Every structure is written in structure tokens, then in C-alpha cells.
């Protein structure tokens, strides 16, 4: 391989890790904030839950524009199509992995994304007593924010995590309702 080609590959690898490295540094910083504080440790999961979700939501709200511009994906007709786009296009584009879509509910309003590893926490070592599910809430926020911008109210949560010793990482997505445009007052 020529030196030029080597350089290109290395650059690509470095940039693909930049997000996960930065997120890892952020999580590590948060752990440091609490390592000496016993009182807060009990509240920690709740506190972090309440902070990562809205930040993730903000990211999702912007990310969807970027995604739609790059991917040329048309409007999804149902939740199944949405699931496929999330797994095969969006995850692939931003995190370089393709989760599998499984465990559909009979009503077709819930499914699971199964990942072999948790993509967000490659570079984070979590202290034993903290739930890793909470750190991954950023991703749940991203999914929620992005889908809300395309008129879907959903719930996303991690139900299994390899970081906790589970065999796989599983995100459960639930369709709540379609978000209709608001009607002017008096016409409801």
C-alpha cells in the first residue's frame, strides 16, 4: 500500500472514533465529579438520567436535518420502515455499525435494536456501582429528538447492555403516537 493510501485509512479511523472518544471523556469527567461524594452517588443515576436525555434530544433535533440531507431517504410509511432506516442507514452512517431489528410487538409498535457492543462507551470504564444504562441515555435522547422532528413521538431505552455483563446491547423503541400539526384554536 502506498504511503498516501495508508494516511487516508488512518485519518478515517481517527475521525470515526472522535465522537466516541469525546463522549467517553465527558462521561469520565462526570465520574470524577462524583467519585468522592457518597450522598450524591445514590442520586447519581437519576441526576445523570435527567441531564443526558435533554442534551441528547438537542443533538437529535439537529442530527435529523443532517441525516435527511445526506441520505436522501424518503418519508417512511410505517414504523417498520422507520426501524429499517434507523438500523441500516442512520446507525451505519453515524456510528459505523448496523444493529439488527428484532422482537417486534404483535401490534407492530415496539421493536428492539440489537447491537453486539455498546457503541458509545468503547473508551469508558464505568465504576462498579453505576448503571451503564444511564450513560447511554444520550443515544436514547438523540433517537427521540430526531424522530420527533419527523412527526413521531417515540420512547427509546436501553434494556440490556454488554457493559453490564449482558450478552448483547439492546435498545427498545416504542411508538407512542404520530405528532400532528397543531390545529388553530377553535377548529379542534
Amino acid at each position, binding site marked *: 500500500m502506498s504511503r498516501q493510501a*495508508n*494516511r487516508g485509512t*488512518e*485519518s*478515517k*479511523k*481517527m*475521525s*470515526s*472514533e*472522535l*465522537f*466516541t*472518544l*469525546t*463522549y*467517553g*471523556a*465527558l462521561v*469520565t*469527567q*462526570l465520574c*470524577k*465529579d*462524583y*467519585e*468522592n*461524594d*457518597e*450522598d*450524591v452517588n445514590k*442520586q447519581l443515576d437519576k*441526576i*445523570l438520567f*435527567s*441531564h443526558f436525555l435533554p*442534551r441528547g434530544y*438537542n*443533538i437529535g433535533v*439537529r*442530527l435529523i436535518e*443532517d441525516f435527511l440531507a445526506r441520505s436522501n431517504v424518503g418519508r417512511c410509511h410505517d414504523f417498520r420502515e422507520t426501524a429499517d432506516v434507523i438500523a441500516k442507514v442512520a446507525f451505519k*452512517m*453515524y*456510528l*459505523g455499525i448496523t444493529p439488527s431489528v428484532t422482537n417486534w410487538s404483535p401490534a407492530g409498535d415496539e421493536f428492539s435494536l440489537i447491537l453486539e457492543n455498546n457503541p458509545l462507551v468503547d*473508551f469508558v470504564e464505568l465504576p462498579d456501582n453505576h448503571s451503564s444504562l444511564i450513560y447511554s441515555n444520550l443515544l436514547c435522547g438523540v433517537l427521540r429528538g430526531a424522530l420527533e422532528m419527523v412527526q413521531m413521538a417515540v420512547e427509546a431505552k436501553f434494556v440490556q447492555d454488554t457493559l453490564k455483563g449482558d450478552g448483547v446491547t439492546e435498545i427498545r423503541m416504542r411508538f407512542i403516537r404520530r405528532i400532528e400539526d397543531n390545529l388553530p384554536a377553535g377548529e379542534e
Partner: protein
Amino acid sequence: MADAALFEFLHTEMVAELGAHHSDPGPGVSAGVWGEKVGSGGGQKMSLSVLEGMGFRVGQALGERLPQETLAFREELDILKFLCRDLWVAVFQKQMDSLRTNHQGTYVLQDNSFPLLIRMASGLQYLEEAPKFLAFTCGLLRGTLCILGIKSLVTASVASLPTCKFQVVIQKT
């Protein structure tokens, strides 16, 4: 593959936290990185130095992932050129626009359209906000230099968005 966009949006959220208002946690309690309550034992608010510190760790991690042959630099200038070319392309998908030095351990790296400033209006309107968007990257440069065996001080200045200059001063031990 994973996108610069995700990193940029996360970076924006981290910077936004600098200005976020959180209700006073009460006596004996301070605010943590994201404003949450922390007991008297620890906690520091999101600050420029916290951002710089996170950038430093990321810069070190990126530096550690370099293939061995790129680490066989002969001269200090080669290392700075590497930052301007390979590192900048890997992180920001473009090269640094200019590199100047006084050949006495001070380097000025100029980016005429720094991607983390691009989304803000050009010119002087957001000049006051600009340093917040540079702290992480200063740390990034400092961290990669550290892995390459160079101790440095990195600061940044903006005269007019989106152009910015990173000043690297090599620390002789």
C-alpha cells in the same frame, strides 16, 4: 462511517453547558459538570479548563492510535506539520491553512474557516462566544503533542469568525 456531525453536535452541547443556568443547589453543595448537585466533596462546573482537559484526553487517545511509522518524526517542525495536515484532516476533514514559526519553539497555526466556528455568523458578531468553541480543540492539540513527546501550551485567538489562530508554545523542560 461515523460522522463529524455527531462530534460537532456533541461539542455544541458541551459548550452550551458553559452558559446554562442551573438553580442554586444550596449551602454546602456545588454544581457538577452539567449543573447537577454535587456535595462539598467534589464537582466543578463546566468551564473552559474542563473543556480543555477533555480535549487533552481525546487528543492523547487520538495520538495513541497513530501507526508507528508516523511517530518516527525527525524534527519538531515535522510534528507540527503532521498536526496541520493529518490530525486536522482526521478531525475536521480539512488541512490547517497556514503554519508559521519563529524557529524558537513558537508556532502559529491558522485555520481560515474553522469548522466549529462555521455555524456562527461570520465577522465580529459572536467574537465574545468564540473562545468557548476553541477550548476543547486547544486541549486536543496539546494532548496529541503530549503523546508525541512534546510538552506545550496551546491557546487560541479569533480576530474575525470563522478564522482562528492556534498558538503552540513548546515548553522546554
